[in-house]
């Protein structure tokens, strides 16, 4: 049985970092068209940690694309703070990405020929902004890199590389950080450390974080878990526990 949750008031509030309003994304046309997202409306409040989950084909990648401005929705709008990003051009979107959106991928996050510190400050350089050394130090400390900031990615472990990636995402104090399977390539302990780090970013720095994951344990670190299936939001779970999330995921097909 699918549970459809009524939209609560907070999804229309202006304290949302990201807001999707009636977003649909259709690929192809006519008989071969595929609806990856169907009339999805969701607001992600500032300072919240959201996990988006779903089986493959559920549309979570498309969701990420639209929310981050990488894909234009077929219908509906996407707002980043007060700015509607669904209609912006490529250059404006690039500027957005370097100043207001942070990205962490599953792997291959870092530029191999730069040191960790250079990787972290790269978005600022691209934006031609000066690096605030104090903030840089704080971010480096917070992610727990310690003395390794002069090392190249090849000399860092997987977990350390993800820490650098998170630091890079944090440096520009973005509106929202998107993480696509950030712990997918890590072992459980390291993964847990990374998730804890993201949690701290939310709690300590007031950062908004959205992760896309298929791991219920990862999702359990979030404030809210949004379950997608067949392009629609089927459930929102507040204060999730990994058992509850796992159970809900298993019964998604019922």
């Amino acid at each position: 049985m699918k549970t459809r949750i009524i939209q609560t008031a907070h999804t229309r509030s202006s304290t949302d970092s990201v807001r999707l309003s009636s977003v649909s994304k259709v690929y192809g046309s006519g008989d071969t068209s595929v609806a990856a997202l169907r009339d999805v409306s969701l607001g992600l409040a500032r300072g919240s940690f959201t996990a988006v989950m779903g089986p493959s084909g559920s549309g979570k990648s498309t969701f990420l694309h639209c929310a981050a401005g990488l894909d234009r929705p077929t219908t509906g709008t996407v707002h980043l703070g007060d700015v509607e990003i669904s209609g912006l051009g490529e250059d404006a979107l690039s500027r957005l990405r370097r100043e207001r959106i942070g990205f962490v991928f599953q792997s291959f996050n870092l530029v191999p020929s730069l040191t960790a510190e250079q990787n972290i400050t790269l978005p600022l350089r691209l934006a031609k902004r000066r690096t605030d050394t104090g903030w840089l130090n704080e971010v480096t400390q917070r992610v727990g890199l310690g003395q390794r900031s002069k090392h190249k990615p090849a000399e860092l472990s997987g977990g350390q590389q993800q820490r650098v990636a998170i630091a890079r995402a944090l440096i520009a104090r973005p509106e929202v950080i998107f993480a696509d399977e950030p712990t997918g390539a890590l072992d459980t302990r390291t993964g847990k450390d990374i998730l804890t780090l993201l949690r701290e970013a939310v709690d300590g720095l007031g950062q908004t974080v959205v992760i896309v994951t298929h791991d219920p344990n990862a999702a359990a670190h979030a404030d809210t878990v949004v379950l997608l299936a067949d392009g629609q939001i089927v459930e929102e779970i507040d204060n999730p526990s990994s058992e509850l999330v796992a159970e809900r995921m298993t019964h998604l097909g019922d």
Partner: protein
Amino acid sequence: MLRIAFSTLAGRKGGMFGAFAAVCLSVILVVSCGILVDSSLQAPIPVERLSAAEIVVQAKPEIGPNGNVSAPLSERRRLPAGLAASLQRLPGVRVAVADRSFSAQVIGGQGHLLTGRSGVATVGLGWESAALTPFELASGRAPRSAGEIVVSGELAQGAVRLGNRLRVVTARARESFTVVGIAAAPSAPRLTREAPIFFRGDVARRLSGVGDRADLIALALEPGADTRDVAQRVHRALAAQPGLRVLTGPARGEAESPEEALSRDDTIDGLTIFGALAAFIAIFVVASTFALSVQQRHREFALFRAIGSTPRQVRRMVAGEALLVSLAAVAIASPISVFAARLLLDFSTRTGMVPEGLQIVIGWRPFAAGLTAAIVTTQLAAFASARRAARIRPTDALRESAIRPRPVSLIRGLFGLAAVGGGAAVLMVSGGGRDSIAPASALVWMLAVALLGPLLAWPFSWLIGLPLSAFSRGPGMLARANTRGDLRRVASVATPLMLAVALVVTIYYGKSALWQQTIEQTNQRTTADYVLSSGKSAGLPPDVAVAARAIPGVRQASGSFATTVIVDSDPTDLQVLPARAVDPATLTPAVNDLGVVSGSLRDLHGAAMAVAADDAKEFGWHVGDRVRVWLGDGAPATLRVAATLTRPLGFGDIVLPRALAARHVTDAFDDTVFVRGGSRAALEQLRQANPDLEVTTRRQLAQRVADEQQQQSRAVYVLLGLIVVFCALAAVNAVMMSTAERTREFARLRLIGADKRQVAAMVRAETLIMVAFGLAFGTCIALPGLAIVSRNLTGSARPSGPLWVYGGLLAFFGVIAFAASGISARLALRMDPLRAMAARE
């Protein structure tokens, strides 16, 4: 393993395409050159005038006094005419003729020069040589008295009639003859080289000036006689005579026209050198491209290792792929090579490097050479890079960041250092003189830079990157870091550029130095006001200089002709030096100031010679020494060094008295008469007796010398141009290969906030660094050798020559590289960034 190689290849078509393209281009280059060389080798020199003489005996047109090394002769080498009599007696021989041909200019009634069809020159022969074609009387009779001649029907397009009186000019005499017969050779191929004039036998002998020697002994056989049998008998009969060869069939063409044989051999030498250079370059390009493609698949090899392949299996897989790629490349490139060979032939014929009428012969040898070269090179390159690939630790497959293994292995580094030392050694032992081997240092250093390339690229990128990253903080800094991080990629793009620049600087500016120095010396040396020469005919008879002297107002007139002298500079080497035969009595500083530094030209009489000072120093000769040399036709002579001189370029390294040389050249016509004083109008009066005479001034002479040098070099320039194009294509290939694999890297940058413009700017900056690296090092390795050659020629180490060629080359490569990187970057940026991140590498 081959099956796996095939399927991995099929899956990685994109990745291997770059390596495939490099091998393809190289094969096309090498095979098309090979086809031309093969065609030249196999192209027979057509037999025309000697068609009816089945066997021809000739003195070998080369000398090899020291056994293992030989030098070709530029003048006709003659043999005793008496041999004809002894060969006549052999069974099967119908007639044995002592054949002598000599330049005979024919002046018609109206005073202009008569020629054969299409302007071919006239030659004099004895009437007995008519049977060799065979020429038969179409009208009239054979020459009976000394003043009678028979002409071939083609002369003056048949405008010559029986009874006409013609003036004939030879090197020895100017006489008038009556035409008593007209001959034709309907059964023989058309004569394209000469139009014969037949004299009575003894008259021909007198006019030829060679006495009891002949150019050839030609045998016409009895009908039904077996050529091979008779040839063997001739061999046996001549066993006692050294230095002769017996020719039958198509080989007779070499005897009929030794000049064509010489020019063909020059062509073959030139093409072979070019082919060797092309192969040299091609090997570098293939090796660096292969190394790059193996490196790009680093993670894939790690995967293979992780799932259980042994290092040996990975090596064999790489070798197997290399084999498949090279076979496929040869298959595709071979038909294209044939087409390319035709284009190359067109070019070469137009620039005069290859004689007209050369036909393309498609033999198996060039393709075998191309196949061997492709397989051997790719296997070697694969072996070197596979060793690295096989040693990858399996865990590398699981690591995230792209790991670049150590750029230069110890062995490679050692070889590289050895090559650096080798190049320096070449420079140090290179002698003075024009033919210094100093430029070879550039070749050795090319090897050094190719081996050490990645090591050299690091500090270079660091340095050049400084202003770049200061100028543009984001893309510039990235470019600097990327080029330092991926040194093999830098090397694969920079290496072809470096090779091309080094070659062009070495060859073009090397020749340019010689060329400029020749013009300068000619200007300094020529004090004459006017220079007389002939148009298209063999030259001016010696009496022209005498007649010029007789003109009132003329202070001095001196004639000379060019020949060669062969010297054994050391027991293992024979050098053929350009020489000039002069009239010592008239070669005064009034007409030519040769810059004599020791001895005196007044001693230039009898068995003596004057030598260029540089050569004398190289050979260890001093004024007064008696030295053994060989004259142009191979005749040995012991000559006394009478003087040394400092302005040989454009004149001759060795100056001989004409009396000495005249009997040892093909035709003793003057090619130049220097005149001091007089006037152009007066000199042009000489045209009455010499319709072909041309009067030029001193200034025009220098220009003509320059033009001739240019002409000779043009073929080389065309070939250089081909190499430049090849290297440009190789660099473009490397750029596209390396950019195509970076889609994920670009996507990542875009996702963290770089816009497409910034990524493109980063790629442009990287290209700038790589191109600068290649061009800078290419120039550096060529300069020392060039400086030495310049210093030998001009006394100053500063290279001479037009700067626009160098600048143009740099600009060309810059534009090509930037265009390639721009286009490939744009292609790589097309994909949506997130999709690119998730895609296969």
